[in-house]
């Protein structure tokens, strides 16, 4: 009794080998490159004139660079969720998604580091962090865990890639000379012997186990950049768990977005199926409910007490200047996606994609709400300052750099998918044979 949907090895390989950019791919890349260059030029201006090109001031001393940083660290947690946790739990249906998740993770964490350097007033003194680093500072903890997470994620991207590199080398007529050189440089030592697979599997297992606590650490430590201060809105014991749960949510949303785009762009309907959207959709509902729970704890409990420093801050979020953004982030970022994805028809590819886009966009605004409003409510009143100190809207340079960093993340993912198979070929073949 043969399964009609069973695919042959040749079929799988032919479908999953990296494809050249079509017209849409070229337009996509060109637009991203333009945005990235605009960001780079804006950064050149910032290096030349100083941070005065932003709209940050002595009170709002952290702006969208930092909220972008938090957003990137949040998204990069997805690598550990899909790759590590699902692998360890032996969740087979998620295998096609592991490489997508991992490249999102690596790409996001790289740009998290870049955007932090962009935010520094003296980036040329970066070495001071290593030469004079103080272990008691949460920033140093962040540097340590993010670097660790980057290397583990990179290895979790590389090791499962090795069997696929062998396949790519085997099909050298399909790739350019340069790419073939790259594949050979990276993976020619891989023979695919049982011995090598044994080592590789063990290594991947160990990495999967270690990445989980490190992943919890990166976003917890990032949350402690805020929670170790006294300010209203930041001085909360809830922050570690609140941030980590939000990170899992936005990461899962990002994976659904990437799934949908790659499926459409590369015709991968046989590999990223309705079942994947269905299951990921359910996961997003679970994570969104969890994040909503933490939000209730974070906002409603202090609102019940309305301590003096928090009163102005919370009132501004619920019904003041930041109310539109706040309710947008809650409804569009959490409530509407939950409602859409609760229904079976809502978990089909297109509605799930829309819900996931809402999750990601809502999450970006949520991170902005975590950083800026608090800074506008210092303990001591803001008096005799220029009018613009009482509001914060990023300048054109800041937007350019922030969008440039987002474009950079997408560019890395795009180029990765152009060079390597975005769905693991070898593992798909192996699983297909196991099913047969």
């Amino acid at each position, binding site marked *: 009794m043969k399964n009609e949907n069973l695919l042959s090895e040749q079929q799988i390989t032919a479908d999953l080998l990296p494809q050249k950019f079509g017209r849409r791919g070229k337009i996509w890349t060109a637009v991203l490159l333009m945005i990235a260059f605009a960001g780079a030029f804006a950064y050149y201006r910032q290096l030349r004139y100083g941070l005065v090109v932003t709209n940050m001031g002595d009170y709002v001393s952290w702006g969208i660079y930092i909220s972008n940083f938090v957003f990137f660290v949040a998204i990069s947690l997805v690598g550990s969720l899909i790759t590590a946790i699902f692998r360890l739990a032996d969740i087979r249906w998620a295998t096609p998604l592991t490489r997508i998740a991992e490249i999102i993770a690596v790409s996001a964490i790289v740009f998290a580091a870049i955007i932090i350097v962009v935010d520094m007033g003296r980036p040329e003194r970066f070495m001071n962090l290593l030469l004079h680093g*103080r272990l008691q*500072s949460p920033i140093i903890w962040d540097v340590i865990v993010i670097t660790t997470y980057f290397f583990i994620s990179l290895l979790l991207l590389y090791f499962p890639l090795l069997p696929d590199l062998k396949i790519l080398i085997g099909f050298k007529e399909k790739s350019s000379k340069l790419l073939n050189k790259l594949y050979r440089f990276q993976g020619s030592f891989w023979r695919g012997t049982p011995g090598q697979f044994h080592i590789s599997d063990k290594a991947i297992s160990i990495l999967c186990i270690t990445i989980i606590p490190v992943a919890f650490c990166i976003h917890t430590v990032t949350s402690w950049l805020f929670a170790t201060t006294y300010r209203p809105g930041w001085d909360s014991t809830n922050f570690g768990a609140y941030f980590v749960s939000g990170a899992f949510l936005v990461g899962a949303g990002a994976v659904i977005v990437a799934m949908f785009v790659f499926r459409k762009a590369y015709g991968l309907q046989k590999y990223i199926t309705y079942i994947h959207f269905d299951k990921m959709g359910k996961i997003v509902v679970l994570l969104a409910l969890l994040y909503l729970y933490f939000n209730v704890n974070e906002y409603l409990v202090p609102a019940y007490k309305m301590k003096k420093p928090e009163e102005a801050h919370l009132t501004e979020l619920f019904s003041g200047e930041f109310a539109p953004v706040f309710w947008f982030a809650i409804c569009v970022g959490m409530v509407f996606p939950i409602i859409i994805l609760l229904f079976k028809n809502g978990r089909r590819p297109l509605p799930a994609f829309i819900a996931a886009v809402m999750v990601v966009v809502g999450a970006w605004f949520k991170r902005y709400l975590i950083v800026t409003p608090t800074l506008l409510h210092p303990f001591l009143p803001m008096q005799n300052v*220029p009018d613009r100190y009482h509001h914060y809207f990023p300048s054109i340079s800041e937007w350019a750099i922030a969008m440039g960093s987002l474009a950079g993340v997408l560019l890395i993912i795009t180029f990765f998918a152009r060079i390597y198979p975005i769905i693991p070929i070898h593992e798909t073949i192996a699983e297909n044979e196991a099913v047969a």
Partner: protein
Amino acid sequence: MEQNERSRRQFLATALLAGVATGCGVKKNPFEDYAGKDVAPSGETVKLLSVDGDIIEMDKAFLKPVPDLPPLTNLEERKGIAGKKFVMVIDLARCKNVGACRKACNHAHQLNPGQNWIKVLGMQDADHDAPYWQPTTCMHCDEPPCVKVCPVDATFKREDGIVLIDSDRCIGCRFCMAACPYTTRVFNWEEPHFTEEAPLAAFIPAKAKVAEKHYSCETSMPQKIGTVSKCDFCPDMARKGELPHCVSACPNGVFFFGDMNEDSVTNGAETFRFSELIKDKSGYRLMEDLGTKPRVYYLPPVNRNFPYEAGLENNPSDIKNVK
């Protein structure tokens, strides 16, 4: 023969002495070397006291200024002045929002327009409480949150209680600004503006500008772009035995500065025992319950010298006109 030798030796010795005497005598002006060969006498003379107790008169142009104090190493600046525990007491009963403290501090440290290390805030704690003027400086906390979070040790607590910033080390991450509950820190978002008129312009040769001065954590000058800055309790003044600029500038004697080890604080005109002053007037610190242990004490605004309204007219024009 011996006679000749003796006389030759004598001749040589005399010649040598004569030569030395002449050589010494040619130097009519002992300061000429220091002033430089190309300095022309200006005609203006000053009277100076020599080490022997004689009064000598000399041309002003030949005087070369040397710094008040030898430059300190970074390690010495980080260690602090031994045996001191600086403390400040601000008497809110005397403050009228004149703003002289702010102006003096801004000028002495060449701050950009809009940057204020001292912020004089109009405070009213609750609806029925009386409003009062509160000058806020850096609190130089004993448990400074800014020092805790600095990743590169660019801000540090010294032996003498002062929290300083090393602008040569600061990476501009602004974590300290987020951590400070008193929001006392300001940041150099752009290249600092320096006026040609440095505070010691009269003593600096015409070409020297503030920007070219050697940077010292104790003077906090010259300010550097992309780094943070704040009130430093003027340790450079303390080393000279002088009071910080705000203390000297205030016409109403609001600021008292002193040493807890000596248990005395002064505003220039009056000196009190610190512990007695705090006890008598019930001094307190800001945001005591945060546990930062600030070194600035406030005396409550009781029996005030001026009504609150008297200060409303002194709006800082330099802040209002900043874009």
